[in-house]
């Protein structure tokens, strides 16, 4: 019974924790401009992240090593450092976006800000990283994040024309108006938002934090293959709400208020309260994850002592680097830059960094020295290689598309 409870908790946490500010903003923007015609990208991204999260989780459970520890062993320091630098900078950018997201959510709730909320957000994230147990942190933010289900509820309350939505999804070409390159730019951005690198780092390091062993593989698989897709459905719900309410009126998404507009319209103040709480939990959780990821990547690359399971005094460089990252993120936001803009840039660069993360994971998951006989089977390898190819295409196309389309305008 206890096992079922643990598995269920893991799944629910995975669902509630799947969406972050990148998914929120990108799906809403896409829904408001292209309707559901980019649904296939979301689905592709969900399958992709499932394949790779499962691999990195399995590596952590079987070998007891987290991803970045192995990246340096496999690539050597020069390529490994290039990998670290790129991953770390993009992680930092994502962290900044998430802190900004917390501030935006608080602004929605309180009506003032967001600038004044930034120090609050920074302190809040830091104190949780400093003092709270890993599992409590994950479970609380994940479960409260389930409030985002209100997007799905709102969708039903809006009585949309399901036929239209279905047509948009299955015949994407009907929705492309204007520059077709913009469509592909957003496809790449959406893909980057769904497959953000930090999720993989975090998932595998979290596996080591929670002391996963081979016995936990079943739980790990349930989290990934049930939790992530359901979480992905939430992304689609966000896009659908935007497609139903914002698209017909050509409302552009520039802030959180447009993103939650469909929910407020469908369910009034109560629904709005739920969605704000949900966004707060999701961005706070994501901020925790990206902060920890920046610590994990640095510490694992250089071989420092790391982990929330250790007292801060026993992982000094790990905690110091996270404090510095938070200060840098706060510093960037203090310049007054728009957090939504930061988010949009971070998802595109996430797409660029994907191959750096995923290639080493694929190599390690096939190495019997780390995996024993839990190496990838043929099907998993086939899928993984396919996605590696997709990832490479997206990574190469991202920056040119961003420049040519001027970030999708």
């Amino acid at each position, binding site marked *: 019974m206890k096992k079922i409870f643990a598995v269920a908790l893991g799944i629910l946490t995975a669902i509630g924790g799947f969406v972050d500010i990148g998914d929120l903003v990108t799906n809403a923007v896409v829904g408001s401009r292209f309707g559901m015609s980019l649904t296939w990208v979301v689905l592709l991204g969900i399958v992709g992240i499932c394949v790779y999260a499962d691999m990195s989780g399995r590596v952590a459970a079987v070998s007891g090593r987290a991803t970045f520890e192995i990246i340096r062993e496999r*690539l050597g320091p020069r390529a490994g450092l290039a990998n670290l630098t790129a991953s770390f900078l993009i992680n930092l950018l994502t962290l900044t976006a998430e802190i900004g997201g917390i501030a935006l959510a608080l602004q929605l709730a309180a009506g003032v800000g967001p600038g004044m909320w930034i120090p609050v957000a920074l302190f809040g994230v830091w104190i949780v990283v400093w003092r709270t147990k890993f599992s409590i942190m994950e479970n609380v933010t994940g479960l409260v994040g389930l409030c985002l289900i209100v997007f799905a509820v709102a969708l039903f309350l809006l009585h949309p024309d399901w036929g239209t939505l279905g047509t948009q999804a299955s015949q994407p070409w009907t929705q492309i108006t204007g520059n077709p390159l913009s469509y592909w730019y957003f496809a790449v951005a959406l893909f980057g938002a769904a497959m953000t690198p930090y999720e993989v780092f975090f998932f595998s390091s979290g596996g080591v934090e929670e002391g996963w062993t081979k016995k936990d593989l079943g739980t790990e698989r349930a989290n990934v293959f049930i939790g992530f897709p359901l979480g992905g459905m939430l992304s689609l719900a966000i896009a659908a709400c935007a497609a139903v309410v914002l698209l017909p009126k050509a409302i552009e998404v520039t802030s959180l208020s447009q993103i939650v507009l469909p929910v407020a319209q469908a369910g009034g103040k109560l629904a709005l309260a739920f969605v704000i709480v949900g966004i707060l939990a999701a961005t706070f959780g994501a901020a925790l994850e990206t902060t920890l990821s920046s610590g994990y990547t640095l510490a694992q690359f250089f071989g420092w002592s790391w982990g929330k399971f250790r007292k801060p005094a026993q992982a000094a460089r790990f905690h110091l680097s996270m404090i510095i990252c938070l200060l840098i993120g706060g510093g960037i936001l203090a310049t007054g830059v728009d957090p939504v803009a930061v988010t949009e840039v971070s998802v595109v660069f996430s797409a660029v960094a994907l191959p750096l993360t995923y290639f080493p994971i*694929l190599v390690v998951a096939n190495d*019997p020295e780390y995996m024993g006989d839990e*190496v*990838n089977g043929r099907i998993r*390898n*086939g899928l993984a*290689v396919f996605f590696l190819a997709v990832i490479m295409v997206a990574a190469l196309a991202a920056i040119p598309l961003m420049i040519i389309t001027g970030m999708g305008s």
Partner: protein
Amino acid sequence: MLLSELLDLPVRGRDGEDLGRVVDVRFRRGARRGEYEGELELIALIVSPHSRMSMYGYERGRVNRPAVIATWIAWIHRHSRVIPWECVQRVDEDAIALGVAVPVIPLNIRRSISDSD
């Protein structure tokens, strides 16, 4: 001397010909000393004529999946060979010079060793 100073050095044969670059250094683990690891003795250099890249474990026969990547890395490191340390005459800052005609020992254990140079 540091291992990193040996890695990536070009290897020149007895007649000055370019045999490739050092991509790894092979040791033999000596007998364990009680609880401790034994000595590591340098026995050979792994030399690749075409690439300096790490092989990620693929070429040692340990990892061979996914097939696509394994094949690509095998192609990059084709003709990689093992050069016994005894054949090395001197180590300079910019190259390693061999002192004798060295037999071709392919790294890939599935390939047979021929006697010619």
